[in-house]
């Protein structure tokens, strides 16, 4: 089985966010980029499937500028991906999720793909638009918020569970689809040193960005940090009952969160 995983480098969670001088985007100077959290789940899921189906390969694909994009691909190889394709975005390209989906789809179309896994959304722009847009571009069904995925060899079907507002939905698919994973993998594998060393020399297929068809675009024009929270208003009380009464009164009268 040929499993494609789409990966995006994002600033690590601990990053101190600040706006770039033009005020339009994050200042990425000195920021460390890592694999987006849900993408890590997608990669882990891809590797687990590969291990359970003989003759499978995992192909990591990423769109973005160097060197961060190349680095996450090498990290994926160190973890067990067999192939990697980097769709190069010129430095300074403002990343638009729909443009990213187009770039990824162009790369995926030209390689074998029985299943395409993505993170449900990336921890930076949190748009969640790449998986469904990829589905439409590739004319495949797409399922976001997948929390469990198996290959049923007996019936040659993917069986998966997605978690939506209405609860759990169980699905099966007899053909390729795109999935956005949202799995709490609290212990994804870590790369072993020899594999890290080998990944440094692995070949990464580079694809120039094809000129995108003229079409609607979106662009960030302002990046703002919320006014620093001034800290909680602390409730003074003598008994737990008094604390409860005060909190409920404040929530109703001041915060107006419930009637």
């Amino acid at each position, binding site marked *: 089985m040929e499993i494609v995983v789409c990966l995006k480098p994002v600033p690590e*969670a*601990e990053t101190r966010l600040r706006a770039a001088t033009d005020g339009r985007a994050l200042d990425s100077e000195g920021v460390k980029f890592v694999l987006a959290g849900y993408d890590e*789940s997608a990669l882990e899921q891809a590797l687990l499937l590969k291990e359970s189906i003989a003759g499978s390969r995992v192909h990591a694909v990423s769109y973005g500028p160097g060197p961060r994009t190349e680095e996450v691909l090498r990290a994926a190889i160190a973890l067990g991906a067999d192939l990697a394709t980097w769709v190069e975005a010129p430095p300074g390209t403002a990343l638009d*999720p*729909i443009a990213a*989906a187009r770039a990824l789809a162009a790369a995926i179309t030209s390689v074998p793909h029985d299943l395409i896994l993505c993170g449900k959304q990336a*921890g*930076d*722009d*949190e748009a969640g*638009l790449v*998986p*469904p847009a990829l589905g*439409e571009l590739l*004319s*495949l*069904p*797409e399922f*976001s*918020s997948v929390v469990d995925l198996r290959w049923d060899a007996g019936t040659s079907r993917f069986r998966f569970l*997605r*978690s*939506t*507002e*209405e*609860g*759990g*939905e*169980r*699905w*099966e*698919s007899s*053909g390729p689809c795109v999935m956005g994973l*949202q*799995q*709490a993998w*609290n212990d994804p594998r870590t790369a072993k040193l020899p594999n890290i060393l080998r990944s440094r020399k692995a070949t990464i297929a580079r694809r120039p960005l094809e000129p995108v068809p003229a079409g*609607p*675009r*979106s*662009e960030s*024009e302002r*990046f*703002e940090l*919320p006014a620093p929270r001034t*800290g*909680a*208003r*602390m*409730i003074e009380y003598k*008994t*737990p009952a008094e*604390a*409860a*009464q005060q909190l*409920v009164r404040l*929530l109703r009268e001041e*915060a107006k*969160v*419930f009637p």
Partner: protein
Amino acid sequence: MTAPILVVGEVQAGHLTSPTLECITVGQHLAAGQAPVIGFVAGSSARSVADEFSHVGVARVVVVTDATLDTALVAATAHAVAAAAERVGADTVLVGGTTFGRELVGRLAIRWNASAASSVTEVRKEGDALHVRRPIFGGRATETRRLDGPRFVLALRPHTFPVPPDAAVPSNIEEVPLPSLPPGLLVARRTALEPTSEGVGPSLGDASIVVSGGRGVRTAENFHLVEELAAALGAAVGASRAVTDAGWRPSSFQVGQTGRSVSPQLYIAVGISGAIQHLVGMLSSRVIVAINSDASAPIFRVADYGIVGDLFQILPALTAEIRRVRGL
């Protein structure tokens, strides 16, 4: 811009959802009386739900009653919405930013060749462009994006906008057929639906109030204290990773970087220290309450209201007080 605005109705338990109603408010605001807001609803119960649009001032509704759409295959709905938008000459499609809504927007951006944004909390029209605000980085920052026209599809963040006032208008329902679908889209089939983990209360992503417990709760058995408070509030239950790692609750409860992101009106963190990986999943909540025995816990730096105290004493008192004021 005077083209109509199409609001895609999402149906739950036989009714339009409140995120759908919020879209009608935003649609009416954007149209500013210059163009109609038109409803869209799909699925075998579409006809009966379509009337609900007319209770809030939306007269014209396009319905597709094909049962193919019942299985929530978003791809099929996206094709039907694109055809409906074409038919009514809309330039903007709005949908609630649920799992369904976000998938719909991603597909429509391609299918209908529109510029797209999700988790939108503010929309402003200026000339031919829309400017939208949306939380990013787990609510630690906000971006304003300019979307170039002529077509727009937006998923609006649920619980952000008011629902429209009642305004009955005569309803004008138009039934259209489902466009034919590429066969590749039909390889998947829904086999079962399982109600939310406990079968009670709203699910995490959807709830307007979330009560989450952390390691401070100490054992799986004690977690009922968190659940009782949630039940009194009609809230969903969440947890920190300390709880899901310990197996006190399943990972579907986890809020944070590797769990779910939530943005309710009210988030109550009980016995949670406030690690950054937890905060990124809940910082965009409107009001945050922290209950923690350690006055220096970082959660108090992001909370609006704080109680320093022992959760084993505070929670029962709080649950009792809420039951009292709600007459439960």
